[in-house]
């Protein structure tokens, strides 16, 4: 099971800018390395990341092999309402991992 870690403040004041940090366990195999038998290891990277606040997409990223293994991203958003933030990572194999966090906005 792949581990995904997200860090979202539990509570925030309405209108406050909050920082969100997200990391997922992934090899991010570049496709430029050779294995022990001299055969190039096939590329397998997380290529897309999306963060939604409620139903609305607030942040996304397209990743390339130059992103380090276990991709880490930090970004910010305005706390608008109490709700759920969902995070989704998609890799070259089409596998999707997700995580979520609740926030209470006062």
């Amino acid at each position, binding site marked *: 099971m792949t581990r995904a870690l997200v860090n979202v403040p539990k509570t925030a004041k309405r209108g406050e*800018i909050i920082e969100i940090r997200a990391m997922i366990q992934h090899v991010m195999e570049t496709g*430029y*390395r050779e294995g022990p038998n001299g055969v190039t290891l096939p590329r397998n990277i997380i290529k897309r990341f999306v963060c939604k606040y409620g139903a609305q997409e607030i942040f*996304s990223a397209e990743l390339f092999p130059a*992103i380090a293994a276990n*991709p880490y*991203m930090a*970004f*910010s958003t*305005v706390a608008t309402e109490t709700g759920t933030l969902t995070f989704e990572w998609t890799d070259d194999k089409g596998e999707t991992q997700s995580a979520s966090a609740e926030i209470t906005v006062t």
Partner: protein
Amino acid sequence: MKISRPSLEEAIDSFTGGASVREGRVKFEISPLVENGNAVPVSVEVESPMTAADHVKRIALFNERNPQADVVVFHLGPRSGRARVSTRIRLAASQTVVALAETSDGAFWSARAKVIVTLAACIEDISQQ
């Protein structure tokens, strides 16, 4: 075998669609000397009010000497509140790294950083062979 990759400037042109890029407004935080090219922390902050009328739409990173010029493209909007992103990147050699920001008025802003890498990311630099 030689891998052909677009030059740094070609990669930037394909991101901007050939639009002119101005220096400024982008604050690029990356260490000038890194020991381990496998995971280099970077932060990019763009001066912007981040309102519906005036905000940063995209922030992208490009490199000069990795096998591929693209690093990452972040999509932001007025709901970001602040145009600041952080991540960790791979650098296969000492080189120049460029941060670009596209604002909602269609302008492009950039900042460049030269980084010396003592231990390169573990990707064979095939272009040197």
